[in-house]
């Protein structure tokens, strides 16, 4: 009996602080947000009773002027831009992380630092940097005009292209770091065993390298895709209204448009979409990792 009590006290002592933090900083705001999403707005746009699904109707595009697909497009665009940016980040980060991992040991920290240092400055500043590079009349924009990618005097900014570049640039370090960690731990014996067992270079990658780097890839994908999906700074600055994402929509409702229930409904949809994305990722991880649970 006393032992049981001691054990439960011990458990309480170790778990309680963390549980309390989660309760205060995560569960409570979420409940608050969920509640907010089901309120209606008063004449000034502030949240008010009674409970309704008004916000979700608005989010789905039903307004005073009938139905418009704008918000749905924003949601789809968010998904598409997130997917595109994540895939591009993977395509750049995977070889980069591998390359860094095979450099002599004294160079690796330097190269990693080179990847990470840019993210020490403010997102806004970095986006403004891209704005300057992509503005009409810059060499890069002129080159794009020459190649027929963009209209004369239009520049590459603002555009969806600029947004994607901004997203990829922003989130690259979050993919490189976990992948680098995975490559550094790579068990080369498995690679050799696969080669010895008749695996072609491609099959070696598929069966001996990919499964080993999968946890890093999954972690990176989560670290990139979730914030990218909610991103609004980059889209705001580099998209110029041409590539708004659901993050912008939500931010707008809480700020200028001051329709908090609509913003909360948007945030709720974001959370649901994120959970769905995680579930898909997990399934994918299990397929690629040979039925072994890949923890993300």
């Amino acid at each position: 009996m006393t032992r049981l009590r001691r054990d439960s006290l011990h458990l309480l002592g170790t778990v309680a602080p963390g549980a309390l933090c989660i309760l205060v900083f995560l569960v409570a705001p979420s409940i608050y947000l969920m509640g907010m999403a089901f309120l209606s707005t008063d004449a000034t746009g502030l949240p008010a009773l009674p409970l309704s699904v008004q916000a979700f109707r608005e989010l789905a595009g039903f307004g005073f002027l009938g139905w418009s697909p704008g918000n749905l497009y924003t949601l789809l665009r968010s998904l598409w831009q997130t997917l595109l940016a994540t895939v591009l980040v993977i395509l750049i980060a995977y070889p980069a992380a591998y390359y860094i991992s095979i450099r002599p040991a004294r160079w690796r920290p330097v190269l990693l630092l080179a990847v990470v240092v840019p993210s020490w400055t403010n997102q806004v500043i970095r986006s403004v940097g891209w704005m300057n590079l992509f503005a009409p009349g810059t060499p890069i924009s002129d080159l794009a005009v020459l190649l027929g990618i963009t209209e004369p005097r239009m520049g590459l900014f603002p555009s969806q292209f600029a947004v994607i570049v901004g997203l990829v640039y922003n989130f690259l370090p979050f993919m490189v770091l976990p992948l680098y960690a995975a490559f550094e731990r790579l068990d080369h014996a498995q690679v050799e065993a696969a080669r010895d067992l008749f695996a072609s270079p491609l099959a070696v990658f598929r069966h001996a390298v990919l499964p080993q780097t999968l946890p890093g890839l999954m972690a990176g994908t989560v670290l990139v895709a979730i914030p990218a999906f909610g991103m609004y700074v980059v889209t705001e600055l580099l998209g110029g209204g041409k590539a708004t994402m659901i993050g912008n929509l939500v931010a707008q409702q809480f700020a200028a448009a001051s329709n908090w229930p609509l913003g909360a409904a948007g945030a709720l949809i974001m959370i649901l979409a994120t959970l769905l994305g995680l579930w898909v990722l997990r399934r994918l991880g299990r397929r690629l990792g040979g039925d072994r649970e890949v923890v993300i």
Partner: protein
Amino acid sequence: MGAQRPDRGRDKASVVVRGVSRVFPGDLRALDRISLEIHAGEFFTLLGPSGCGKTTLLRLLAGLEVPDAGEVEIGGRAMAGVPAHRRSVNTVFQSYALFPHRNVRQNIAFGLEMQRVSPAAIARQVDEIAELIDIGALLERPVDALSGGQRQRVALARALVNEPAVLLLDEPLSALDAGLRSRLQVDLKRLQQRLGMTFVFVTHDQEEAMVMSDRIAVLDEGRIAQVGSPQAIYERPEDVFVARFMGHENLLAVTRHDAGGVETALGRFEGGFAAGTHLLLRPEALTLHADAPPGSSGNGFLARVEECLYRGAATDYRLRCGEVPIAARVTNAGRSQPGVGDTIWVEVAPDSAATLNARRHTG
């Protein structure tokens, strides 16, 4: 691509190694101008102490390592430029190198999958090999839930199931307990004879090497010290290194050599010995007597018994003659035996002694 099955087993292949060297950074000569000829269908063992280059030589045969000089031929084909996955050679790795994200069955099936064998045939072959190696009950287990010995057997099955022309085994039995080990030694040997595969087997256990091999190559710091049958290597080691590695302790420095015999610290031994720096007395070829027997050849000496180690079938004696320690092994046949402290006459049969040279390769 690796899609097509490389020439299947049963077409056993010979292995020829010509003047192969492998030098690692820091001028570390892991292999130094090695030449070997391994016959098709032979059970060939590389024997040597840790770090002598056994694993490096196997890796060269498997194609996982490229020689800095010399050439390798397998089945009469030059292997220069042939990548590992195009060689009909499989390896049982010293570190097992199993795939942790695949279960036992999937691990064993890997090589067959890569060769596009049909799933039904794969299932059948995996079951067969698992039965043979006695891991049938483990097939659906994840490999990280296995003991060291179980992993080693999975590694063995994973390579064997492909029935390659040449199978490379890097200390494949080192993690097994004595019983399983001696059983698998016999099983492996039988399997090799039945399938007719060429086995290149690595061990640093000289008894295991003798039990299993058709021929043994003893490696010494990247060079070959001696190649021969187990009997030749044990009974007629060519230098002191080989003799010591085969477990011989009775090596007496030769002080004088002539046509009629040799002189050592234990006196003169008559016989037509070849020139050499040391005289080897095999422990089991010494006989112990209370006195010099009548009709003794005179090849013998008096010694004091310091220790008796009873080993069941035989007893090992540690003797001392002056300053020189001598080991003798006597089969236990119910005779009365000398005890500790006794002074006895050690008779050396004429054919039980041989001269040999100091380590040939150093200096």
